[in-house]
């Protein structure tokens, strides 16, 4: 959802959205097969370069978006570091058992989570949902009734948030009081979510009837308002990952900074 703030358009925005998505999914699978800590760190750095320099958002905002990454990194590493299997003990304290193996494995997982977060946020910041769904209809032959439903659903998001605020104000005006503790929280949840959801369903139903009447579900001989194709930047994008994945593999073999080649054992 990048249409709420202003940003500079970069080459990452011009990539074919379907290709970008498929590349990202391929990279996700590729990263699962990286077991070498050195390569993992190099791979993270190369995705970070794209995120920091090429998303076209101001650095202050990039920094703001990076705050959760720290939490992700810490929360992913800790449980593996403290409770992982291993033989070379570094620290033992009650249930906590830190070993050299689990320490490296934990750090590896932290970097892996960081890579996923970086790739995902880079995608979200540089892709307009409308172009993504138009591209999926044209390149991936996704049925229009799914694409248009997704686009309508995304458009409804701000309305849902507004609706939520209306419900909260209405509750305040009418003096709705919920008790304290878990029970009160449960009631608050129920009194807010049920009207919100039921209103969502009513609205979605009305929109769907209108869309069906206008043949949005018609898939044969459909023409598209946005025509999305391929260009040179698509080659650059795929090339970037091919070259740098190779480079990270080579550097990890030749100049390792940690003596760990496989974190699994």
């Amino acid at each position: 959802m990048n249409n709420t703030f202003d940003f500079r358009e970069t080459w990452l925005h011009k990539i074919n959205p379907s290709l970008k998505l498929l590349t990202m999914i391929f990279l996700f699978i590729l990263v699962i097969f990286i077991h070498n800590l050195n390569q993992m760190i190099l791979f993270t750095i190369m995705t970070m370069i794209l995120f920091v320099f090429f998303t076209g958002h101001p650095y202050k905002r990039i920094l703001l978006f990076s705050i959760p990454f720290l939490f992700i990194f810490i929360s992913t590493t800790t449980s593996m570091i403290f409770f992982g299997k291993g033989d070379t003990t570094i620290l033992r304290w009650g249930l906590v058992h830190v070993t050299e193996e689990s320490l490296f494995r934990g750090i590896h997982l932290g970097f892996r989570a960081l890579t996923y977060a970086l790739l995902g946020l880079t995608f979200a910041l540089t892709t307009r949902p409308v172009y993504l769904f138009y591209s999926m209809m044209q390149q991936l032959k996704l049925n229009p009734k799914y694409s248009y439903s997704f686009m309508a659903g995304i458009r409804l998001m701000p309305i849902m948030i507004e609706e939520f605020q209306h419900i909260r104000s209405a509750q305040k005006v009418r003096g709705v009081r919920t008790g304290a503790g878990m029970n009160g929280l449960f009631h608050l949840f129920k009194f807010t979510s049920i009207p919100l959801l039921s209103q969502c369903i009513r609205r979605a139903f009305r929109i769907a009837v209108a869309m069906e009447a206008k043949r949005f579900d018609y898939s044969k001989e459909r023409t598209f308002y946005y025509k999305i194709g391929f260009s040179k930047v698509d080659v650059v994008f795929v090339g970037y990952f091919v070259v740098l994945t190779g480079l990270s593999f080579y550097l990890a073999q030749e100049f390792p900074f940690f003596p760990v080649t496989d974190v699994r054992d």
Partner: protein
Amino acid sequence: MKKGLKLTDILVTIVISIAFGIVYKIWGPLYYAVKPFGLHIDQLIYGMWFIAATVAFLIIRKAGVAFLAEVAASSGEFLMGSEFGLEVLLYGVVQGLFAELVIMAFRYKRYDLLVVSLAGIGAAIGSIFMDYYKGYMGDLSTWNFMLLIGFRLIGSVIFTGFMAFGIAKALEATGVTNLLRPASKEDYDALNQ
């Protein structure tokens, strides 16, 4: 009757799911705020991430809805820029698939608490399957691994089973679900009299 989902079914499923997508997004920070306490307390709230599948199924009651809902909710979360990034989308696909398979095993004929709880467990197994490869979960010490699985299954029954069933029942009471049900035989009989 026409085969497959109509645009109405799809749009309603997606809108419900995107509403849950917002919840999923908020759930992320909550999850990693709880996580550093250790001992997998966080796993008890993991089940919230499967809830879209069962709520949507209980409302629409058609084949494929659970899968579509989970994919839509996770892509909503993804497009809002989730902290977990790309993971959510692929986890969503796998979780939705496993939940759908459980519901399919009952031939889409049962809409009770048992089925949705089992669907929750199915989705949890899907997520554990993903975590096993991505998070080296097998390399946790055994007691810790068992604790994680236990907590996640309990959490998914609470959220995806009980809570989803509660929400669906409350929505039935508002009458809004009648919009979406096809006319039944009783309705036609009522007209013929």
